[in-house]
């Protein structure tokens, strides 16, 4: 069976087929002439454009996540995340001495192929932005059933500055059906880096494609997240931020807390006060952030999970509809689907009760603890697989490293030189 590949965005020389697009990206000179600083500034200009009320992009792509993306694209943010991995970012422009007569230089890896998940399209723009800043060329594959959320950004970028136009020419956006095996293979075999976002099935499919042995894989698969909170260490503003972290993205992001562990006895006044304050804040967040309309199965699940929580000895606070649910349980109930604004509060006294309950596929644990407790908890929990410990309000901020993966080092090659005497 053969399908057409839809080329959504491409430089003029890319031609009309996937093979020609790949060849055009590969043929571009290693050094495009757009420097690191110019790239940062072009993306910073794009970020400012997104945030403007009159922004065209706001009308073209879904609003959810746009503010997070705009913040991420700011120069200070991108510089900061690069510094976390590169001691001296000047190495992105020239060889930089690292002592012992050695110098290091970081150059782009080459062609980065991105598989964008239909269910989380904007996420791919985070890794695309890092790739672009580091000077890579990019081939972005959208699912045939999803809206093109990437091309509007490239058009805005191209219209913003000459450097932006240069960057936009380094990205090709294509779309083809999931079962177009040839197109997937062509992309995979051309890749110096493969980046896959999405559900288990999507990322497993990308990993199974043929690939050059030296290709770098960056896989952002599905994850589960938590929060660990000491009611004595959090103020009402923090509770509000935690509620937003939980409610935004309909609690369907990999970084959305599904369970909140609360350091207090279930019958204590401290716990009850936190439960009530959080429930109020969660109700507010649920009302303030629009949610996708639940389908029949999701709607049924809300009713079922409420009943399950009650029959497992839990107590629940909820609205009369299906907007939000806070279930208090002694231990997490894994059969309850903590999504669409259904969160479990689990009381605990000692961190040793929490460690065994950290899931194998954990990503984020939003924490608000006293300094000593934070040091103790994070040191241990990191060994149980946790990738990040943001504060309430930062839970869904895309950061580097993500999922325990340092993007910068994976998206550039480190070149070592012995200096002349």
């Amino acid at each position, binding site marked *: 069976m053969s399908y057409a590949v839809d080329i959504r965005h491409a430089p003029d020389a890319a031609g009309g087929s996937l093979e020609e697009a790949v060849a055009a990206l590969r043929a571009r000179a290693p050094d495009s002439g757009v420097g690191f600083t110019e790239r940062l500034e072009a993306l910073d200009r794009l970020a400012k454009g997104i945030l403007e009320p009159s922004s065209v992009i706001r009308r073209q792509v879904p609003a959810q996540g746009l503010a997070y993306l705009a913040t991420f694209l700011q120069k200070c943010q991108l510089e900061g995340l690069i510094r976390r991995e590169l001691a001296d970012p000047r190495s992105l422009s020239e060889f930089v001495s690292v002592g012992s007569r050695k110098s290091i230089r970081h150059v782009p890896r080459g062609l980065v192929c991105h598989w964008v*998940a239909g*269910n*989380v399209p904007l*996420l791919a723009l985070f890794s695309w932005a890092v790739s672009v800043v580091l000077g890579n060329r990019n081939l972005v594959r959208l699912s045939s059933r999803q809206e093109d959320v990437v091309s509007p950004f490239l058009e805005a970028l191209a219209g913003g500055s000459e450097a932006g136009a240069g960057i936009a020419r380094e990205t090709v956006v294509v779309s083809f059906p999931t079962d177009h095996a040839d197109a997937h293979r062509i992309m995979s075999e051309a890749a110096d880096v493969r980046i896959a*976002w*999405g*559900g*288990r*099935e999507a990322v497993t499919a990308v990993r199974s494609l043929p690939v050059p042995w030296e290709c770098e894989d960056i896989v*952002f*698969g*599905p*994850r*589960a*997240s938590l929060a660990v909170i000491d009611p004595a260490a959090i103020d009402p503003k923090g509770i509000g931020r935690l509620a937003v972290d939980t409610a935004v*993205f*309909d*609690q*369907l*992001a*990999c970084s*959305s807390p*599904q369970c909140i562990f609360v350091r207090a006895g279930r019958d204590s006044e401290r716990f009850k006060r936190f439960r009530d304050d959080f429930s109020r804040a969660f109700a507010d967040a649920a009302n303030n952030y629009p949610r*996708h*309309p*639940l*389908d*029949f*199965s*999701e*709607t*049924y*699940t*809300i*009713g*079922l999970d*409420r*009943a*399950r929580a*009650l*029959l497992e000895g839990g107590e*629940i606070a*909820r*609205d*009369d*509809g*299906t907007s939000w649910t806070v279930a208090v349980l002694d231990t*997490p109930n*894994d*059969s309850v*689907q903590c*999504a669409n604004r259904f969160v479990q509060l689990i009381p605990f006294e000692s961190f040793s009760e929490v460690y065994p309950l950290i*899931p*194998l*596929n954990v990503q984020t644990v939003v924490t608000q603890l006293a300094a000593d407790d934070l040091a103790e908890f994070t040191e241990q929990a990191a060994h149980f697989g946790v990738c990040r410990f943001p504060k309430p309000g930062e839970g869904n901020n895309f950061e580097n490293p993500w999922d325990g993966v340092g993007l910068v080092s994976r998206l550039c090659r480190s070149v070592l030189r012995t200096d002349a005497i």
Partner: protein
Amino acid sequence: MNNLFVQDVGPFSMRPQEKAAFLGSRLSELLEYHVERCPQYATLVADWRRTGGREADNIVDNIADYPFVPVSLFKEYDLRSSREELAVIQSSSTTSTSAAKVYVDKESRKRQTRSANLILADFIGAERRPYLVFDLESTVRGTKGFSARGAAILALAHMANEFHFVMVEGDNGPEIDLDALSAALAKIDGRPFIAYGFTYLLYQAHRAMSELSGLEAHPDSVFLHSGGWKKLTDIAVDKPAFNATVAEPWRLAHERVIDFYGMVEQIGIVYPDCPEGVKHVPYWADVIMRRADTLEPAEPGEPGLIQLISSLPLAAPNHSVLSEDLGCIVQTNGCACGRSGTAFVFRGRAPRSETRGCSDVVRR
């Protein structure tokens, strides 16, 4: 708890207002009955009362507000309202991973039988006749429990004056027993009969019988079937094709093949298709379609999750269940077939949700 069936009032003859008053008072009683006897149900009702600001002693005056138990709970919990030894009906679980377990006591069984008889008599007449069962005899054996298939077979038993099971266990499950079929037809000797089979079994049997010649049924004979369509949908068999496959070997009109909807959690309430192709609700039961997103009652014509309400069950709180099935109310009163009250169509199982985000279920 008594006076469930009104003398000389047909199952579909009560006017809507009269029915609302009749059913409302019975459902209020039933709610308290199960709250007192089933602690889990009491927990669910307490949450319903607390959240909706409903007082403990209030009467249910709006059936659309009546609380429900999601059907999946009958797969996960032992919900019962009696400490007596009870029979158990289990769902067939042909396409799901676990079976629902629904308790039934003697009184509920009596009510179920009476209910099914009244409903079916309204569709196919009350006279008893030979009963051709497209299933194994072993499906109805046992005294302590039945499968959903067994319960459905027995729901029609009181319409029968003789039984003929015409399938045997084969290498790949039940298959038609041509000797038994031949013997049954010889005994029936041209009289009108009633036949029943689970939808897929009935289809499978008739596919195997397609080469048989000389079959003929009295034109007043009727084939009833119930159960999921998933296996048939998978092999692209729709209702007209199914009806033709079953009716034609017998030289029966296709309308003599009647699909009825029912759930193991609501045995005794059967919903056969009327000649207009819709399902009618008897005065001792109700259906509410619940909207996606909000669970609010859907308007006529709008699809919704089917909440099934029945005033029959006493052994377990399965008198109001929210199913995972979709339906649509098509009339609130007055079908061309002559039956009054709510009529609905069944739209199949709610599709599974698509994956929306990058969150994962917890893995341990």
